[in-house]
């Protein structure tokens, strides 16, 4: 699932003359993808859902899915429900459009930004001059010798050619093309039709239970869209983020400087070693991260986050909902991303419980709930105990 990275270009607001924009062809070619996705998710998908409910086998599976003592395992149920769905021409058409738009975001988007490369670089340089991109404001630490995990390296996430770092203008492509023209309308992966992904981030940050935090950490921070939201809710907090992708981190550092909030960014494999000190953070936020890691790496990640959090510190997580929390039909829709939108760990993670993983890692007061349509965003939050058992004995 892509949540990347639309740090809004304020100049694209209504009535204002943009300072950088795609050509007419580039813009219209992406805008029509947004319209196809809106029709697919907004019109065809509810029809497919109704067809599923009307199908006797579909209804039976839906009841089994909701039952506290289901006859079939979750994997069996989803496989059977998928077969029911695939028997419906409307479902197949809807999924075809989803796949088509996901491919074309890049097939159309890359040429659209490439033809404006010179203009973008000039715009970018002008923006840099006008802002205070000095290192005092924040920091960026890249680790050239970092071992990229074997499960991560070969994946072209969300059909993005070459992966997160596959093309130097991906940041611009999302900020000025796919972000405003396709993703802004919602209706892909777990994001509901019409959902506003900027608003969803803010709503997520407001799930932190305390009024103020001194130091907040985000593993998998990408291009800092979420840290920007954190800054607007907790302007006093010192912000730290880490990611595997150097391209996203470089873009993130530039954006943070431009938007005038200091962040400290580090290239790291957060599931192995964040490079942060023991008990050094008051809060941790993760956004759209766990479904991109194999379950085993998630367990290691939670242990590492537990280590760097202070006693009493809070963790707030937003990720797609587990299969158990959504309808049978919606489980098929979410499961589809695993194979069809290059998300190899989507289903393995959605079969699991982040709640259980957090408890295993030692967290307490673990709870999870939805704050939007179709159970998305799905919030999981927890606290590191004031005193751990080991310390209590000592």
């Amino acid at each position: 699932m892509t949540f990347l990275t639309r740090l809004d270009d304020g100049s694209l607001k209504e009535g204002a003359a943009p300072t950088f924009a795609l050509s007419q062809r580039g813009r219209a070619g992406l805008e029509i993808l947004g319209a196809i996705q809106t029709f697919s998710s907004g019109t065809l998908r509810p029809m497919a859902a109704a067809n599923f409910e009307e199908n006797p086998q579909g209804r039976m599976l839906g009841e089994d899915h909701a039952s506290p003592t289901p006859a079939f395992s979750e994997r069996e149920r989803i496989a059977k429900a998928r077969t029911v769905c695939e028997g419906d021409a409307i479902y197949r058409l809807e999924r075809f459009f989803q796949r088509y738009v996901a491919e074309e975001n890049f097939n159309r988007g890359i040429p659209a930004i490439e033809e404006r490369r010179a203009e973008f670089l000039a715009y970018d340089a002008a923006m840099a001059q006008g802002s205070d991109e000095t290192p005092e404001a924040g920091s960026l630490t890249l680790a050239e010798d970092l071992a990229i995990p074997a499960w991560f390296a070969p994946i072209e996430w969300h059909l993005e050619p070459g992966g997160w770092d596959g093309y130097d203008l991906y940041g611009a492509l999302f900020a000025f093309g796919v972000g405003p023209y396709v993703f802004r309308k919602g209706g892909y992966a777990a994001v509901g039709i019409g959902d506003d992904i900027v608003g969803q981030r803010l709503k997520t940050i407001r799930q932190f239970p305390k009024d103020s935090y001194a130091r907040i950490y985000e593993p998998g921070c990408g291009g800092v869209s979420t840290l920007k939201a954190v800054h607007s809710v907790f302007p006093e907090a010192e912000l730290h983020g880490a990611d595997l992708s150097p391209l996203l981190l470089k873009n993130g550092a530039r954006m943070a400087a431009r938007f005038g909030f200091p962040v400290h960014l580090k290239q790291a494999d957060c599931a192995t070693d964040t490079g942060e000190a023991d008990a050094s953070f008051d809060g941790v936020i993760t956004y759209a991260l766990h479904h991109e890691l194999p379950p085993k790496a998630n367990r290691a990640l939670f242990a590492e986050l537990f280590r760097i959090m202070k006693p009493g510190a809070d963790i707030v997580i937003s990720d797609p909902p587990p299969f158990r929390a959504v309808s049978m039909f919606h489980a098929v829709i979410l499961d589809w991303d695993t194979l069809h939108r290059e998300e190899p760990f989507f289903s393995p993670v959605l079969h699991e419980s982040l709640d259980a993983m957090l408890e295993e890692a030692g967290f307490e007061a673990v709870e999870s709930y939805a704050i939007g349509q179709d159970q998305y965003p799905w919030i999981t939050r927890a606290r590191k105990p004031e005193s751990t058992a080991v310390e209590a004995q000592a």
Partner: protein
Amino acid sequence: MNTSKTDTGPDYLGPESITDVARMVMALMSEVWIQRDRQIVTEYLLETQGAVTRQEIDDFVPTGDLAERIAAERQRFANLVAGAPIAATQRSVSQILERAGMDVPAARATGT
């Protein structure tokens, strides 16, 4: 190649190519829309400034009312093309008017 004979000659593509054909239709749909958008932009620039260069059309970004008008036209276009398969069965007056992006008059809607 599946050369089974049909009334119109050999079946070159075969039924398994239906998705490829749909991709071709979608690519054409996008190309047609890009032209349609360009036409709206060109008409707008001609109306508002009397003459227009190719560069001005390339660089123009619609805002405000014009952007809204184009967005409505674009959604209607997408609904009609991508929704063509369901138009075979979803044929009540209100469904037809909705697909066309038009208001459904109360008198009509009750008759459906």
